[in-house]
């Protein structure tokens, strides 16, 4: 037997419909998503001004990532292109310097050049002026291809010199077990997961000079902690 029920003359707040309605309260978060252009339903994309705001270039890249099922390239093909990439951009001291396509004449003035922030240890926020230009600028040139290979327990290249403002198409492969290739960008990170033997691709544009820590965020074995590399953005 159940304890006594309260049935008669219920207050609004104990009525079933009222309680059920409030149970859907969490769904109201959709409003916050819509405000940031990250709402899944089509009608909110119309409110579009926000979508261009920075993070979530939601629509543009969708084409890129839409075809999840068919692989970009085989791991062997990746490794072959990766070797060619290293052969092309590796300097005698072992770093990999990828010039910006838009400014070919600057190609060899990598770091130490007039960017004062490039050589600092942590990515210090740049002067306020560069803040204004965060919004994804349409890249002038084609993105340059980067081949980042993650393995137990490291990355090649483990030091890359790239340019701010230039889009790079990162093609990434974890060739033994799953790894991460996350980017530490000062006050926050961009987390990237790589599944074993699946070539992944992201087009990334750095907007500020600085040093970026590349680190593995998927546990991969005993020396997981030591698995890191760096990108120097000039």
């Amino acid at each position: 037997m159940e304890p006594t029920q309260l049935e008669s003359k219920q207050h609004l707040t104990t009525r079933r419909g009222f309680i059920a309605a409030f149970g859907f309260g969490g769904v109201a978060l959709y409003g916050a998503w819509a405000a940031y252009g990250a709402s899944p339903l089509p009608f909110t994309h119309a409110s579009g001004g926000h979508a261009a705001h920075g993070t979530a270039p939601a629509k543009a890249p969708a084409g890129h990532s839409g075809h999840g099922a068919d692989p970009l390239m085989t791991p062997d093909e990746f490794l072959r292109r990766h070797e060619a990439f290293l052969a092309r951009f590796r300097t005698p001291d072992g770093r990999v310097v990828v010039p910006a396509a838009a400014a070919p004449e600057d190609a060899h003035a990598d770091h130490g050049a007039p960017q004062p922030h490039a050589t600092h240890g942590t990515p210090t926020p740049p002067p306020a002026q560069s803040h204004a230009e965060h919004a994804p600028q349409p890249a002038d040139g084609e993105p340059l291809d980067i081949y980042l290979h993650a393995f137990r327990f490291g990355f090649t290249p483990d030091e890359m010199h790239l340019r701010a403002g230039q889009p790079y198409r990162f093609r990434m492969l974890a060739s033994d077990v799953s790894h991460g290739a996350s980017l530490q960008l000062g006050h926050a990170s961009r987390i990237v997961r790589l599944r074993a033997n699946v070539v992944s691709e992201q087009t990334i544009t750095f907007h500020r000079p600085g040093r970026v820590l590349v680190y593995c965020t998927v546990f991969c074995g005993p020396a997981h902690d030591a698995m890191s590399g760096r990108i120097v953005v000039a």
Partner: protein
Amino acid sequence: MSTTSTTMTSPRAPQTPLSRFATLQTADRLLCGVLIALSLFALALGIAYGVAMALVRSGLLAPAPDTGYRVLTLHGTTAFFYWLYTAQAATVLLLAAAEKKGALALRGLAWAGTALIAAGFVLSELAAIAGPPLLYEANPELGTDDPRTVAGMTGGYLLLAAGFALIALSSIATVLATRRQADGGLSALGFGLLAWAGFLIVSAVAAVNAFLPGLLWASGFGAFPHAATTDWHILFHNLHYLPLMATVLVWYALAQDLTGISPATGTAFSKIVFASYLVFVPPTSLYHMFLEPGLPESVRVAGSLLSLFVSVPTLIAFLIVVASLEIHTRAGGEGGMRARLRRLPWDNPAMANMGVAILTMLIGLAFAFVLIQEKLAPLLSDTMFVPGYFHFFAVGTVTQSFIAMLAMAVPAVSGRPLWRPRLLCVMPWIVLAGLLLFGAGGLGAGLMGVPRRVVDIGYGGEAPAIWRPFMAMVGIGGVLFASALAVSVFGVLRSLVPGRRGLAAAAEPHVAAARSAAAPAAAAWTGPLAVVLLVAAMYGATIGAFELMQSLPVTAAGGGAH
């Protein structure tokens, strides 16, 4: 103790769910006692590994990396698998027995299940201690050099799954048997127990799907399980929503025991809410995979949308329970919120644990909902943000709700009064304080990119210096909540040792007398108000994460991966 709680004495009075523990037969009490002891032993061990992990992550302990990851594996295996599943098995069986007011059905099956769980526990622990760290998902990718470890951990999990499935069967048979006794069919709680036990069996099937291929490969009978990651996600979603459903059922039972009134919304409504877990939980599983390479954008978008609904059954149950508690406080006379809050039986450890469990669930939900937005996954997945929020659920909400329930059940099982109830009433508040510190440190660290599964986050001096103080908060908060929780575990275990009266006589649970007269049509605004505050907090957390993400000096296209 409390003036609002009186001991049930008359067997003729209407009974609240847990008061029926007094009717448990000796043989059932022995079985339930063994199962409770086994679960609490797993919890105690899980807490010990957790403390070690908190010290390691804060930098206070610097073990060899292998040792660090082994402890992390053991913590997850012990706390997440063996504590949560064994506690569920014990609870579903106890509540089923109480529902029936007679002997358990298929008791032999339940004993066999208990033995299988114990065997699985030993096997998984030994494998995790002896072999390379595979983390608690027993990832076969990491065990290619040492298949024996994969075999041991997956074999242990399969024994565990078989064990709780058998106990779930016994519980189902027991609840179904009540239909023959009762006049009006199943109670709401009985119905909820059937859904829960059914879900446990589904979970066992998911565990077989996730771990059997690994076991076969490791034993030389099958191909390498390349689908292990996907199969793990299916189990994992099930694995962590099921305890939340269990929690809600425990609250539902406890609220009736602590206040003596049953929900104003009635039995049928409660049944619909319990059943709705089966509708709302399975489709919401996609958000764990937002960072998986190869997941199409359309699936990610749909996953975000569906995940918005994951809290619906839990929030409705929360509102029902909070309304019951509030009506109880109004029945003692009007007054301000504080005066009415004080009328709840806070001097009962069950109430204190449940109260804190409800609070931590709201805190956890506010942050959990940041992660269901696929656009934010690249900011927070695989970071300390994840353990930062889920300990609010796993420890604050779920574990403390089971402790609350055991604080009521154990005296009936053992015949011994609860050990130091006043002390046990304080512990949940210390757990809350520790969780707030741990959560603030973990959520903050996660937002700044501290990875969740890295023992040494120094990266040769290249990691941001600000990571350290946040991880120190994680360590201090973790040790604080673990210590307080350990006292609660000790208290319940101590009370489980049969008293002088022994198993022959049961102590009467400390429950409020069921009210025979209907309370006046009281208002219950606390729950709806809490939901409004929760939504505001969700907005704050999500907007904060979006702002942080937009401030990153990088634009990336192509989703989580190709």
